[in-house]
């Protein structure tokens, strides 16, 4: 049942619509004044002035500019003056987004690099910074891929920036080694695929970069390019210890390495490890050379090395055996010189002769210690067997060294040595010798 107010309102509505209203007594008293109101004459409104003003307002609105012309003046907030900052912001965002796809040589590329530099500022932790460097390297690699895919020249600067990014990433301490290794491996594969497409003048640089990446990833044997210094070392060293008899190598390398002969001796093993990271560091190893002369006995070591775990024996003992170790270490540049010595060492006399050259180096026994350090950091896992073994043997057989001189042919001895090699479980040492070099530290962590 409708209330009285509702019925009154309904009656008024019907009255306003011109309909006949049957009034009940209760409504009549109220509908009378309502009818009076509705019958009140409505003033004839003079419309002219009001209409003119409305038309003028319409014309003014249309003149308000572009938005009015576009029919957008009615949209809320669409006022050109208000839109300027918004449009500038949108334009900036668009440019920044587009710059992400810019390639070297394009006008947006500097914007891209600027943005990268700014974004780096937001990376506070070393881990985040390292991750960002890896990301930057990935970007450079992608750029090179896109450039080669479209037949455009790859600027050397891009490749240099790629290398630089990795160098920075590897130099930051406290980085998650696994992720770094994974990224390095992944990018190394991409770089390897990209290699043939790169211009010839960049090939060497790219190979260097690839080599470094593989070393970072812990896959140094996959390196395609023999060119880099390490390879040279490899060849030399392996010859002696690894496969056949080192004899061949020694002669070849003998001469050139002579300058730093001492190294040849023991160092070789150590070098291998270190080389993986930084070739330069390896050089110090020479010190161990001292023992080298006695190496004759070492010759046997080579064979054992493979089976044995890494043993970075202390300086003293190491000296002798070093020669074999060389085999594994090949990578190290310095080795070359050493290898030769070794060969010599086999011959009793050589010791003496060799000693002269190496001796100088040995004296620095202290330096010896450093060598071991190299070894550990780099490729503890891989090299260990080779390099260390030799040393181990050394220690035990120092005496032999004397005798060995005759043994000239290390090859024979090897068998015996092998057995010995196991003994030299001194391995611990290597670990101690942590490198100051940050890169080597990272590797050590990786290995761990």
């Amino acid at each position, binding site marked *: 049942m409708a209330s009285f107010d509702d019925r009154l309102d309904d009656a008024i509505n019907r009255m306003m619509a011109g309909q006949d209203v049957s009034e009940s007594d209760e409504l009549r008293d109220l509908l009378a004044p*309502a009818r009076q109101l509705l019958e009140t004459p409505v003033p004839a409104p003079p419309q002219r002035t009001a209409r003119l003003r*409305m038309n003028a*307002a*319409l014309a003014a609105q249309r003149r308000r500019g572009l938005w009015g012309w576009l*029919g957008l003046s009615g949209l809320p907030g669409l006022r050109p003056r208000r839109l300027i900052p918004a449009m500038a912001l949108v334009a900036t965002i668009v440019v920044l987004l587009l710059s992400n796809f810019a390639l070297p040589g394009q006008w947006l590329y500097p914007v891209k690099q600027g943005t990268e530099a700014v974004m780096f500022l937001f990376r506070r932790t070393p881990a985040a910074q390292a991750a960002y460097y890896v990301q930057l390297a990935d970007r450079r690699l992608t750029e090179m891929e896109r450039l080669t895919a479209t037949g455009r020249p790859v600027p050397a600067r891009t490749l240099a920036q790629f290398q630089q990014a990795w160098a920075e990433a590897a130099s930051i301490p406290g980085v998650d080694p696994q992720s770094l290794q994974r990224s390095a491996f992944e990018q190394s594969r991409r770089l390897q695929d990209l290699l043939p497409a790169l211009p010839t003048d960049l090939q060497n640089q790219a190979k260097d970069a690839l080599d470094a990446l593989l070393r970072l990833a812990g896959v140094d044997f996959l390196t395609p390019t023999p060119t880099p210094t390490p390879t040279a070392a490899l060849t030399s060293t392996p010859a002696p210890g690894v496969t056949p008899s080192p004899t061949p190598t020694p002669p070849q390398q003998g001469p050139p390495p002579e300058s730093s002969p001492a190294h040849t001796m023991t160092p070789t093993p150590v070098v291998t490890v270190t080389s993986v990271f930084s070739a330069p560091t390896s050089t110090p190893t020479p010190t161990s050379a001292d023992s080298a002369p006695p190496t004759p006995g070492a010759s046997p070591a080579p064979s054992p090395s493979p089976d044995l775990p890494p043993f970075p024996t202390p300086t003293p003992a190491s000296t002798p055996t070093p020669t074999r170790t060389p085999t594994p270490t090949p990578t190290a540049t310095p080795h070359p010189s050493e290898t030769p010595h070794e060969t010599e060492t086999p011959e009793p006399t050589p010791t003496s002769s060799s000693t002269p050259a190496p001796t100088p180096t040995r004296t620095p026994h202290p330096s010896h210690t450093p060598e071991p350090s190299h070894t550990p950091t780099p490729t503890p896992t891989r090299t260990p067997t080779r390099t260390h073994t030799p040393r181990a043997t050394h220690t035990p057989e120092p005496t032999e060294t004397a005798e060995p001189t005759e043994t000239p042919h290390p090859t024979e001895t090897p068998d015996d040595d092998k057995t010995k090699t196991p003994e030299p479980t001194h391995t611990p040492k290597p670990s101690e010798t942590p490198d100051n070099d940050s890169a080597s530290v990272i590797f050590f962590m990786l290995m761990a």
Partner: protein
Amino acid sequence: MQILLLALQASLREQSGRASSPDDAALVKRARKLDDEAWRIIFERHYPRLYSYIYYRVGDASVAEDLCGELFEKAVKNIHRFKSRDGGLAGWLTRIAQNLTYDYYRRRKARPSDPLELNESWLSGGDDPDRSLLNRESTDYLRRALQKLTPEQRDVILLRFIAQMRTSEVASIMGKTPGAIKALQHRALAALRREMEALGYHGLI
């Protein structure tokens, strides 16, 4: 005579259209694009009752016309702010009219409740002396009785019967519920009748 007058008013109302007619939304859409035709329709549909409303509020035809001009200027400039929940286009326009009358009184430093001083030239009734007399008499009583009402009662009477708005539209403008407006309307009519009788008007049947 009276029947003729009623028929005339009914046709006038029909012509001016209702505030919330279904095509208001389409009209607003076109009006936002500054469509001349849309604005012409809006003007013709709403101007008469808006003018009456303002006239009864300010009591001067020339002022009412001036305020109406200002009202449509504002409407053109602010049509982009119109929202359908504002009580429809009629309600939105009436609220502008209400604000304009408040501003007018503020400028005059007078209150809206001041007695209306109607310019009654339009009540002449043309050549019909009877109609003219009727208009004068009833309008005079009505005007004086309206002054005796409370501002809310006067507002509801003006919006409902002079501006001829629906209860829901009045409710939207006055910020009340339709139920409250119906009750207020009831009280306002009762008060108006009482005041007119008190003034000695016996024409209410």
